[in-house]
């Protein structure tokens, strides 16, 4: 089953969770929602199998099973997904100090390791063609 794994590390990132729900062509969506207030119910996505959890000791297995990883642009999450050789789309959480996630996302994109976007763009555009 074509699977998307979306992760927010130990933060909360409600906008990513909401826009990741619009991914297309994927039959299974696994969401790691961290401390966020948005926790989608399994029934909220009628055309795909949805699983959601807050935290796990290790997301290595979830990353391994994914065909696409959508992540906040945290360093640990990026390194883990790229280390596993998975296609990676990062959504920058611009509510963190100095908007520091943007720097790493831009650099890794320049080095052709991933695609990145902001929350608003993810909601409207990116996932249509990815």
């Amino acid at each position: 089953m074509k699977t998307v794994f979306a992760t927010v590390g130990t933060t909360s990132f409600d906008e990513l969770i909401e826009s990741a729900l619009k991914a297309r062509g994927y039959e299974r969506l696994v969401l790691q929602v961290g401390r966020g207030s948005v926790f989608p119910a399994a029934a909220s996505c009628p055309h795909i199998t949805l699983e959601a959890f807050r935290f796990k000791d290790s997301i290595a297995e979830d990353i391994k099973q994914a065909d696409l990883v959508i992540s906040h642009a945290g360093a640990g999450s990026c390194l883990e997904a790229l280390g596993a050789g998975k296609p990676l789309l990062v959504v920058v959480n611009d509510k963190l100090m100095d908007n520091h996630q943007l720097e790493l996302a831009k650099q890794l994109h320049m080095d052709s390791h991933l695609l990145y976007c902001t929350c608003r763009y993810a909601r409207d555009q990116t996932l249509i063609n990815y």
Partner: protein
Amino acid sequence: MMLLLGAALTALPLCLVFIIRLYIVLKTGPNHKPGAKGPVAVLVVAGSGGHTTEILRLLEYMSAAYTPRHYVIADTDRMSEEKICTFEKFKQQSDSKSQFTICRIPRSREVHQSWSSSVVSTLNALWYSLPLVFRIRPDMVLCNGPGTCIPLCVAGLLLGILGMKKVLIVYVESICRVQTLSLTGKILYPLSDYFFVQWSSLRDKYPKSIFLGRIV
């Protein structure tokens, strides 16, 4: 009036001595090689989330000479203790003599916390950091960016200023930081003995920094 004058006359030379001692402590960094005497006791600041992940990735490649490892985590951090225990179990397999401890101090700053209240919470964390560092007396403090490391580094510097022990301050800026330093990095840049950056653009902007590429 006389009391004020007396206080000023006492405080001024004390401040002067403090500044001179700080200057001496910062200058002796590169010549101080604790590893020449045997194992190097490290105080590791695990700042939660990505900071903990990065510091454990770093420690994975550090030799068995860095022992014991004293991890310090914030009291509100739920995840780091598990990650550290898992990591140390793995370390035990290749080095049965490895030792570690985990201590907690109040967090200097929570994510999204305002600056004004962060000063107060950092001072509170310093109150707890001083007895901890004075008790452990590490050879080195290893940290990578969270606000939690500031009071611990200050306590380490104080050990040196008071002539009790030279504690090396080793700072590794997060790989997240490509073009700009974090606030913690900016504060610790003049105070650290070894300051690592992981992108060449930062090495160009901060000449005292050491660039070895990605080290996490």
